[in-house]
Every structure is written in C-alpha cells, then in structure tokens.
C-alpha cells in the first residue's frame, strides 16, 4: 500500500533547518493496521502528512497503492486524497456550520458523486459509526466521542483504501478512545489499511505492527519478534518490512 524510499523532509525557517524525516524508508502492506509512536518532534505527523499527500518532501520516492506519487500536481494529489485516503484528526476537525450529514458529505462533494449515491454512502457510513439518528445535529451538539465518530464516518464514506489517523483518541477519555479504536479495527477488518499515530502504548499495541520514530528515523522495537529482519538501506536509516 505504502512504499517510501529514502524520504527526506526538512523544515526551513530563516535561521533554523529542522530535519523532520531523514532517509526514511518503509513499506506498509495493504490491509495492515500500523501504529506509529515516538516522542514529540520525532516526525510522526510529518510522516502522516507525507503519506496523506498533504505535504511534499525534498528527496526520495513514494509509491502509494502501486502509483508513484512523489511528484504529482496539486490536482492529482487532491484526487488521490479524495479517492484513496481517509483522514482522522486528533481535534476531529469537523466543520462547525455543517450538520453531521453534511460533514460526512464533504469528501463525496469533491468527488462529484450524484445525490442518491451520496446519500446512500453517507447513511451507510453513519450506520457503521452508530450515528444514524444524529444526522441533523451540529458538531457543537455532540460529545467529543460522537464528534470523532462523525470524523471516522467522514474518513470512511468514500471507501478509501488507506486511513491515516493522527492521534485519533488524543482528546477522548478512555471509554470513548476504546470505542474509536474498535471502529478503526472494524474498518481495518474491511481490508482498509490503517496507519495511526498515537502516544498511548496500550492503543498502539492493538495494531498489528508498531513503528517507532526518533529524530525523523525509524526504530524497529519489534525486531526480535519479527520473522523478516531489518534491511539496512543505502541512506543509513533502518526500515521495516512486513
């Protein structure tokens, strides 16, 4: 699903250069549920942004679902985001003026789907997250857990092959967090690849594979448990392969 090879991402300000990802190489197969952990500033979100085509990188190659997406136009990247990728954010990022139905509708609008088809997809997604009865509610009228479920429905509605979740439980209590994790597992069981950034080891443990980042490099803490050994790449960064 995801093949990144020797990716390098540097944030530059007038005086400082920050290496967010350094010679980063990774492969994630279709249908995997991967968690990404690491201290703040280790490059987790940068990884997700690059994986989600929300950010570009200076060097390297990125193959998504068999297609080289390293150097695409904005229009091409937007189309791929819309059709292949679903995002779930820590702060839910729902649009406050839109009700639940319309929030879930947003990605489908950019896909140019017809009304009937859209309605069916939205109702199905809301059914999966258990919010069919709340279509007319606005985000402010929902609890945090419900808002995140709406966000999950929005990520799910376009039937993407990849879900990128950036600390999806970060703003939730443990019960709600478990609900959301259950949902992510349900989605993963539908053959959707899930990559989740989290700070919580117990949630990360629910993924099939755990990745650890430090200073923009990948550290494989599961090396001992893994049947496939690490392959040292030319860039010097360790990489993981399932």
């Amino acid at each position: 699903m995801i093949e990144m090879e020797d990716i390098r991402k540097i944030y530059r300000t007038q005086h400082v250069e920050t290496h967010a990802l350094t010679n980063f190489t990774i492969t994630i197969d279709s249908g995997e549920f991967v968690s990404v952990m690491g201290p703040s500033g280790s490059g987790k979100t940068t990884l997700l942004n690059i994986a989600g085509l929300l950010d570009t990188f200076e060097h390297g190659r990125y193959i998504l679902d068999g297609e080289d997406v390293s150097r695409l136009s904005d229009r091409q990247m937007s189309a791929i985001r819309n059709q292949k990728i679903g995002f779930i954010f820590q702060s839910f990022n729902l649009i406050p003026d839109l009700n639940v139905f319309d929030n879930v509708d947003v990605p489908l609008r950019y896909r140019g789907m017809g009304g009937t088809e859209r309605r069916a997809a939205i109702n199905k997604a809301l059914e999966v997250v258990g919010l069919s009865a709340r279509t007319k509610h606005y985000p402010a009228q929902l609890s945090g857990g419900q808002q995140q479920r709406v966000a999950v429905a929005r990520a799910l509605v376009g039937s993407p092959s990849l879900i990128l979740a950036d600390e999806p439980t970060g703003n939730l209590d443990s019960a709600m967090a478990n609900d959301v994790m259950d949902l992510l597992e349900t989605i993963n069981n539908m053959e959707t690849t899930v990559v989740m950034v989290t700070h919580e080891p117990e949630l990360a443990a629910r993924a099939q594979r755990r990745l650890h980042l430090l200073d923009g490099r990948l550290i494989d803490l599961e090396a001992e448990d893994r049947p496939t050994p690490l392959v040292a790449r030319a860039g010097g960064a360790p990489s993981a392969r399932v």
Partner: protein
Amino acid sequence: MFAYMIRIALLSLRRNPVLSSLLIAAIALGVAVSTAFVTVYYIYSGDPIPTKSDQLYYVQMDNWNPDRPYSRRRPEIPPDQITYRDMQGIMTSDIPTYQSGMFVASLTIHPPEAEQRPFRERVRMCFADFFPMFEVPFAFGGGWGRESDRGPEPVVVIDAATNDRLFGGGDSVGKTVRIEDRPFTVTGVLAPWRPSPRFYDTHTGASQVPEGVYMPFEFARVFEVYTAGNLLIWTDLEDSAPFEEFLASEAIWIQMWAQLDTTEQRQAYSDFLEAYVMEQKKLGRFGRPLNNRLLDVMQWLEDQEVVPEEATGMLVISLLFLLVCAVNLIGILLGKFLARAPEVGVRRALGASRSVVFLQHIVECELVGVIGGVIGLGLSALCLGVINRLLDNSGQFGLDLPMVAAGIGLSLVAGLVAGLYPAWRICRVPPAIHLKLQ
C-alpha cells in the same frame, strides 16, 4: 459543485452577519454610484434611433457673416441652424425620402372643460415627414398628411401625457383642442416615445423629453410665433420688424433633417444643396466659402458634444469610487479568509484542490458582489430619481435592462477585484499546518 459552492458561501456569510453586511454595503454603495453615472453617460452617448441613425442627416449651410466665422472656437463649422427662407428653398427638393424643418414654440392650450385652466405647452412645429422619418410611435391615429402642411390645416398630434390632461386618455383622434385662438383636430396620440438623447433638437437640451404637441410648421406664420429655442442673427433686424421681415432675414432658428437612404441619394442631395447655395450667392447671400454639411445622427451628436464633460468626468470618478470600495474590501476579505484556514485545510485533506478552494472563495466574493449589486441597483434607481429631479426632465434617466446588466456586471467585477488576492492567498496556504492546530 457550483450549487454546493454557493451554499458554502451563504453559510460563510451567515457566520458573521455584521462583517458580511459591511462587505455587501461597500459593494452596494460603489455599484449605486457607478451605475447611476454609467446610466447618465449611457443616456447621453447612446444611439437614439439605431434602426436608421446612419440614414438621417442634419443639414447645415454657411450663411453667416462673411467677415467672421460662426464659431471662433471652431471656425471651420457652419451655423448649426438654418434660416426660414433657406428651409423653404431646400424643402422644394424631392431627393430625400423624408425631410422636415422644425423648431419648438411655446403656445397656450385651452382644455375642453371650462373649469380647466389654459396652460403653456412646448409645441414642435414641423412637417408631416417628422413622424415617419423619426419612426415616432402612435397609440392612436397617426401624423397628418403632407397636404396639411401646405394649408396649413389645423391638425395636431399630442403625446400621451397631454392626451391624459386634455381628454382623460383614450383614443382622442378626431377630438378638438383649442390652441391659442384656433381649434385643432387631433390626428394622432403618441405612444410612449423618448429618444435618448433627444437628437432632433440639441439646442434646447438633448436630455429633454419630446414635446407634448406637434403641429404643421406653417402655423408659425399664422400665429407669428417665434422660436422658444435658440435664435441667432448676424445682420441688423429691429425688434419691431414685422414678422414677414423676420422670416426673410438671415436669422437662424430652424433645425433641418433629411432622410437619405442610399449613397446616391446622399450625393444627389449634397449636389442639390451646393447648387442651391451657389444660386443664393448670385443673389448676394452666402458671402462665406461654400461650406455645407450633412452629418448623420451619431456624427451630429458628437459634433454637438451632447455628452457633457461633467458626465464623462462623473463616470470616471464613480468607477474609481467603485474600485476604491472593492480595493478596501481586499483587506477585510483577506482577514476573513485566512481566519478560515483550518477549515480550508480540512477541505484540502478531504480532496479539494487548490483551484477548487480558489473558486470556492471567488464564488463567495461574487455572491457578496451580486447581493451588493442588487441593493446597489435599488439605490442607483433612487439616485437617478434625484438626478432627474435636479435636471427637471421627468424620468429621462432610468435603469433599463442594459443598465441593470451593467450594474450586475460592475458588481461582479468589483467582487472579483476584491476577492482575487484573498482567494489566491487562502488557496496557497499549505493544508497540513492547520490540521494539527484546529
């Protein structure tokens, strides 16, 4: 997608009604002022008779003082009216399809009802050809025949307002109206007719509405009535001179129009005028070099500088005012849009491309423009009402379909001017940086 964009734009406007009202008010004000002055300019500069403006010719001949030109500013031009005797002389030609000398007089109309008081009315003294030549529309009846010019027979054409005033409206053909001391029979009642500008007589104001009453020219002789318009003379003529002496003088006070449909007709008429002047020269008149002119309607309006400099100046100022309104909105819109960057980040993540985000924000600006434009058009109509009242020409300036379209067009341009930079800025914001922060 476009309908969705309009819906999102409306939601955005509702989110901050005070700010949105401010944006709309700025556009409305700019559109109101600019549309009003565009309309004034349009009325002055438009083609008043587009179907045949290139077939109608204003006739000029230079009978002026041999020692000095008619105009010191433009010595090459002949006088812009002609004498009675020259009108009579050239009206003998059968070359033009239609032709008419004319002037405006002020005569007293006596309403049929005894309790109604007599009133003064502007009366156009003209020939039968006036009506078909200028395609004057009739609600009832028509103009008089050429034979009525010769008598002259006591016939009149009245406009709708005069018909309402005298007879309470309706078909008044055949009814009698007393003008000065004579009864006249109504042959026709005009349908609404307002050539803008009133090209056929620019001397009494091109923005004036047409006269209320029309009668055969030769009643000028019967009533011994002088023009209520411009009269200029370079020879000596005593105020107490008999009317017939005035008619035979070099006084210029008549506008002369001829319809010449073909190039051959125009050439023949031009030759005829030249021959006429050469003949007059033999009689001791026309001491200046031969200088006849035939100008079609648009040439004549340009020559007469019908579009006042003030109208052009106000047009430019009002458009600049609209531009200033739009430019002032750039900052407000930029702040409004950038405050929404996190939402834009989400939309970008969900599949909106830069161009879609740009278009979305342009649609919002254009929505502001159109709402402001509609309000502005309403204000513009009020503004034109005030201008009409100031110029005392009862509704000359009004919004017609092209002007409404122009107003909406201006509001769209203003929306675009105001929105281009903010929309460009917001679509360039990298989506990733706001997703974490929202």
